[in-house]
């Protein structure tokens, strides 16, 4: 037993034996299910408008009890840790699944690999040292450029410990650190205001982030984006060629392709991709993977939230659709195996198949070649976020730094605009794939069905032959 779960069994009237008995009894005619225990500690320290505005500490403890029979999921969660509360949950599950006639699937793969250290980032540094850095950030930015009118900077850190107890008493555990450092700057010049945002993060300690060169780099980047936007002119409207820079612009992959390849939407046949397995969905040379196994990355997981070890799942290989991302439920119903993609925001939510670090791998061309080949188009470097309608396949993402391309040369910066495209066909419009693959800086959160989970993306520069740019200039 692990010390971090002692809050469940030592400080309540629940014993581990009794708990296991209730689990096995509740799940006896079910196909799958588990008790998920979670103990998380998190902090956030915010500097805004020249002052430390917030220092917040949160501790959250709770359980989620799940029973699965055929296609039906019964779920009950509570943060009251008592025999009564667990029994009430058990009754709620049994009443939903009173006619269940399944047999419990005990098999779950094992692995000893870990992709991050068992640490609590919050306790590793004093509050004072974090406040000191935030004040330095503020001074640094305001002294660097007279047009800086607002600086917001924050640290957030978390340690989430989970334990999964399956029918029969099998237990799986994980301790997940997560940190993030974010800077946002607003500039004002000749009455015009623009802002720039940049951040870094991952499953590690604050140490490397508190180094001076690192936080200064984040500040410089936020300031650079804001300065570029101060000079921006209205974006064009209509279909044109788009060159995407490496790294964070891979939100495109996440929105356009990623969500549509999640198991649940394909089992339900509501994804625009559900009948395209084995078919060519992208240009040759396009390979996309979803990888939970990169050390210390924001989207990495040692095990997923059902206890399955994560892996590197090939989604599209050289243009051909190879795999969907699966949790246990959708894998069973689609007669395949879980890819270790079962995730939840916390114990309040059911498990869904989700992305981890979604990446397009390197090709052979250079960014220079791509820009040279475009007569009229845009070069998009940084993005705010995106969204997809997985049924129609239409997706958008919002540029926060972009430039026009005229006759093979990068021109003036353009105002933030939304780009829209069609998921199943966009990858066929990719005519060049760069050799400069980059991971994003570690700041992504993906939302689905009201649940946010940390994710990563990566890609090299790419050239898309046709996309609609949502500017105001006709």
């Amino acid at each position, binding site marked *: 037993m692990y010390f971090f779960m002692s809050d469940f069994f030592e400080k309540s009237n629940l014993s581990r034996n009794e708990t296991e008995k209730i689990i096995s009894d509740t799940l006896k005619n079910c196909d799958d299910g588990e008790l998920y225990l979670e103990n998380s500690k998190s902090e956030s320290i915010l500097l805004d408008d020249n002052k430390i505005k917030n220092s917040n500490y949160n501790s959250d403890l709770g359980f989620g009890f799940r029973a699965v029979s055929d*296609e*039906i999921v019964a*779920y009950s969660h509570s*943060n009251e840790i008592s025999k009564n509360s667990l029994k009430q949950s058990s009754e709620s599950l049994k009443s939903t699944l009173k006619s269940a006639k399944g047999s419990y699937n005990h098999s779950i793969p094992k692995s000893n690999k870990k992709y991050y250290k068992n640490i609590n980032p919050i306790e590793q540094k004093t509050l004072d040292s974090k406040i000191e850095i935030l004040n330095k950030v503020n001074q640094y930015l305001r002294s660097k450029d007279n047009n800086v009118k607002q600086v917001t900077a924050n640290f957030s850190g978390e340690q989430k410990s989970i334990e999964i107890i399956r029918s029969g008493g099998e237990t799986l555990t994980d301790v997940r650190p997560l940190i993030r450092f974010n800077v946002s700057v607003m500039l004002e010049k000749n009455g015009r205001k623009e802002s720039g945002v940049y951040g870094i993060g991952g499953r590690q300690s604050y140490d490397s982030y508190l180094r001076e060169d690192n936080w200064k780099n984040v500040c410089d980047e936020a300031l650079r984006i804001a300065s570029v936007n101060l000079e921006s002119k209205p974006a064009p409207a*209509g279909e044109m060629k788009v060159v995407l820079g490496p790294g964070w612009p891979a939100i495109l992959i996440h929105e356009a392709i990623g969500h549509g390849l999640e198991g649940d939407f394909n089992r339900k046949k*509501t994804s625009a991709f559900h009948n395209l397995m084995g078919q060519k969905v992208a240009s040759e040379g396009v390979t996309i993977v979803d990888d939970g196994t990169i050390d210390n990355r924001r989207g990495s997981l040692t095990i997923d939230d059902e206890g399955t070890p994560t892996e590197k799942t090939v989604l599209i290989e050289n243009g051909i659709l190879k795999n969907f991302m699966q949790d246990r439920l959708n894998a069973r119903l689609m007669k395949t195996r879980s890819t270790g993609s079962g995730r939840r925001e916390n114990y309040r939510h059911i498990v869904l198949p989700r992305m981890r670090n979604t990446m397009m791998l390197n090709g052979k061309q250079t960014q220079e070649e791509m820009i040279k080949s475009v007569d009229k188009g845009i070069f998009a470097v940084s993005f705010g*976020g995106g969204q997809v309608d997985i049924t129609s396949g239409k997706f958008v993402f*919002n540029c926060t730094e972009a430039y026009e391309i005229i006759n093979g040369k990068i021109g003036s910066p353009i105002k933030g605009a939304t780009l829209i495209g069609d998921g199943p066909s966009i990858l066929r419009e990719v005519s060049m794939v760069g050799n400069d693959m980059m991971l994003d800086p570690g700041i992504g959160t993906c939302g689905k069905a009201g649940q946010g989970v940390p994710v990563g993306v990566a890609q090299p520069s790419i050239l898309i032959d046709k996309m609609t740019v949502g500017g105001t200039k006709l």
Partner: protein
Amino acid sequence: MVKDQNYLENKASYCLDLAKKLGATDISVFVGNSISETVNFRNKKLDESNRSDNLGIDITTYIGKKKSSISSSNLLNDNLNILIEKCIETTKNTPEDEFNSLPDKDLLAKEVKDLNLYDDNHIENDDKIKYLSRLEIAASNDKRIVNTESSFVEDKSNFILANSDGFCKGFKTSSFIASSVVVAKDDKSMERDYEYNQKCHLKDIKNAEELGKKAAEQTIKKLSPKKIGSEKIAIIFDKRIAKGILSTFASAISSSAISRGTSFLKDKINQKIFSDTINVLDKPDILKGLGSKSFDSEGVKIDTLKLVEQGILNHYLIDTYNGKKLNLKSNGRCGGTSNLYFENGKISFKDLINSNSKSLYITETIGHGSNIVTGDYSVGATGFLIENGEFKYPINEITIAGNFKDMFQNITLANDLEFEYSVNSPTMMVEGMVVAGK
């Protein structure tokens, strides 16, 4: 059963006493509990049941002008002891901020009004199942409907807000939500749409068949969409999208955006920011209103505000901290608006869609394309082309863009306001926006 007032008050006063003993000069505590039971259906069969019991506490402690806060879902006293000690320690180590304080005592609410926000009726999961079956049968009538997912949520909540100036009040609320998401398919396309109904009282929930039928109709209408060319065109926003534009307006007049200087509406008080005919109200005392309340999240009394009158901006949404910074009194809007709405316009929906020979009717937008610093707006959109007052064909894979400063001056509203959400708008036309398509 959701925890009663007594339990919540005891927890709150335990925390107030302990924090005071440990050296806090001012304290505020929020304790809340909500229990919800949800049933989900898919293709006329039970898909998921979900019972959720959430207990939580937020504590903010002040030592003079220093402030820090903690939150937790573990309300056992020995956990609270550890957390409050930690909170006081953190407060001591946090720099002073001259604007930190509890609200002025004379602004605190004296009473909790009876706004009929709680319905004690309970709907058993078996009855939710019956409702959803009827809904999904009605939604699946047409052969082109290939997937239906519907849900019924019942939620009961209770809370107490207490502070060291003697404020200690809370109230129960209930919420019932029926919704349905439908997928339709033809040779050329697959489309999705939805219908949603939320009420404080169970008996006010829409008829299941009506809801299912509407979700299906709206989805089928979207099949075989076309993409149009890029042009300047009048945009008509369906009510469910128009209310989002009103919400963006509300975030742009929040005192935090104003005091930080990060809003395109800074310094626009007493100026004309909308067309002459526009009035915007925030009314907290609507009976059974989804946003109704007697006080804001700091305990400050809340009254109706005419935020915009004949196009002129009268008020920001002010909380205590940012109010002090701006030298203004809180108007009870910490945590945002209550029931926010545009007053009805003068013309009917029919006249509105007839006012241009060609316009675009938007039923859904995607993407986070509202920038409240600059007022720039650019989102992906789905809808219909209207010609001479008639819906011609569905449209998708386009974007619409403009700047709120111009858009607000070019709004015409229909007279079809209904109170379906906590933010409500009649159908809205905005002229002069740009559509990007082919």
